[in-house]
């Protein structure tokens, strides 16, 4: 399987704190990979580095073979990477439909003057955007919730809407930051199945952060484990589950925690 994303010796320091320390791993094209580790391990920081929100201190990020570090965050979506957030970030006062419709904007080309004067291209492309948003919401089972203000959705559906909004940008790689946080086991299982389905349907590669290990063992083909910014293990779910270092980190032995 070819590689869609590769981190090479990625390091991020915040002042004296090294949040990510010389981390290298690959995300396989078309697969679901997991990034796990205890609280504060540096998982979200890695997402922020990939998406250009934080500047890389050292190391390289290659997407489909070309370096992307230093790219402006808003251009990351153009390259084919989108993400969701650990603490959901929806456009709260927009409806569910508008959230997705807004994110569809890259599929239209009409300019400012064309919208102000309502030229033919505006009408044509707005219609296409509407159809695209509607289609996505149907696939994601949100078609009956389209008119609700995003704010008023229950938690689980908000997470689902955030994924739908990310899909509206036609990503090649989807980064999910603890998509199951705050969900009950039922909802979690449903969500994991959904992620598997959309991966096939949209021909995506997925990198998902989780800090409950058992939860992603089932869906991921490959897992990278972090602890205190350093790589602890890297391998298939079976290898990870049987790795004494991983077991230790999760059960918490205090001596080894401070050093890598």
């Amino acid at each position, binding site marked *: 399987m070819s590689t869609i994303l590769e981190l090479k010796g990625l390091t991020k320091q915040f002042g004296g704190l090294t949040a990510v320390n010389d981390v290298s791993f690959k995300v396989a094209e078309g697969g679901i990979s997991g990034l796990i580790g205890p609280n504060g391990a540096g998982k979200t920081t890695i997402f922020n580095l990939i998406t250009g929100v934080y500047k890389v201190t050292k190391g390289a990020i290659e997407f489909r073979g070309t370096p992307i570090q230093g790219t402006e965050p808003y251009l990351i979506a153009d390259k084919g990477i989108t993400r969701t957030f650990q603490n959901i970030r929806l456009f709260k006062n927009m*409806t569910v439909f508008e959230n997705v419709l807004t994110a569809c904007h890259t599929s239209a080309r009409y300019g400012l003057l064309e919208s102000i004067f*309502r030229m033919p291209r505006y009408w044509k492309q707005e219609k296409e955007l509407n159809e695209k948003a509607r289609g996505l919401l149907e696939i994601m089972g949100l078609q009956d919730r389209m*008119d*609700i*203000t995003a704010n008023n959705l229950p938690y689980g559906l908000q997470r689902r809407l955030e994924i739908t909004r990310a899909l509206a940008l036609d990503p090649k790689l989807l980064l999910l930051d603890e998509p199951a946080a705050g969900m009950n086991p039922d909802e979690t299982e449903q969500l994991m199945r959904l992620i598997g389905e959309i991966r096939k349907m949209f021909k995506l590669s997925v990198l998902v952060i989780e800090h409950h290990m058992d939860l992603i063992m089932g869906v991921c083909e490959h897992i990278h484990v972090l602890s205190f910014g350093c790589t602890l293990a890297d391998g298939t779910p079976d290898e990870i589950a049987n790795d004494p270092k991983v077991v230790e980190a999760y059960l918490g032995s205090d001596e080894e925690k401070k050093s890598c």
Partner: protein
Amino acid sequence: MLSSYFQQIIVLVGINMIAVLGLSILTGFTGLFSFGHAGFMAIGAYIAAIFVARLHLPFWMAVAAGAAGAALVSIVIGGLTLKLKGDYFCIATMGFGEAVRIILNNIEYVGGARGWESLPQLTSLWVVLVLAVAMVVITWNLINSRHGRNMVAIREEELAAQMAGINVFRYKMVALVVSAAMAGIAGALLGNYIQFLRPTMFNMVKSTDLTIMVIFGGLGSISGTIVGTIILTVLPELFRNFAQWRLVVYGLAVVVIMVGRPQGVMGGFEMTPSGIRKHFAARRARQALEAELRAAERESAA
């Protein structure tokens, strides 16, 4: 024909409307607060006055130049501040508004602090009405497009907007330039209506007045902006004869609405057929969802 007093109020409402609609794009829809918008009005007003009174150029050209001048200055302000985090933009606009006023105070060519009297009256009721309606349409069409939605996305959640491929800097700049141009037009119309200009007309109080009209009407609502502008322009005019009560009534109206309805008269709601449909669809969908959740809860309890 309308009485001249009534006409005068309509003209003032129309002129304010043009400025406040622009500010509504910036503050109500894009989420950027400006406390120097009177500065853009001043630039438009003085450029237009120079065009007609000093250069003897046609009125329409003066208005266009006023808009263009304000827009150009806004590009400089935006370029310097819109990439910075947080409230720098707000503070910078405040400084900008005051700077414009102080600079005008010191330019004798345009009358300095004493002001500039006996400008020609070229702004007519019809010009104001046509331009105000045109600005409502332009604002509406802009907001209800992918560009307008991108602006609202920035207001709602800037980081998520960025991750959704929205060039935050560019859209903030577009909102600022459009709003500055509209303020410039309003200023150009004002000077050529009341026939005199004085730098103090464009002080921070004027800037705040414009912002209050946007907030009063409801952030993120064009119809709210229209209603807010009408109420807050007409009210002080009606009480002009009771000069000492004017600000009290104005202040009270603002306080009452902000306490009773902090989201403004309209909130984000649009008083249009599609806006009303949307409002009720949202309510229906929410009630349906709540009913389903309750049913599911009962089921799991049983």
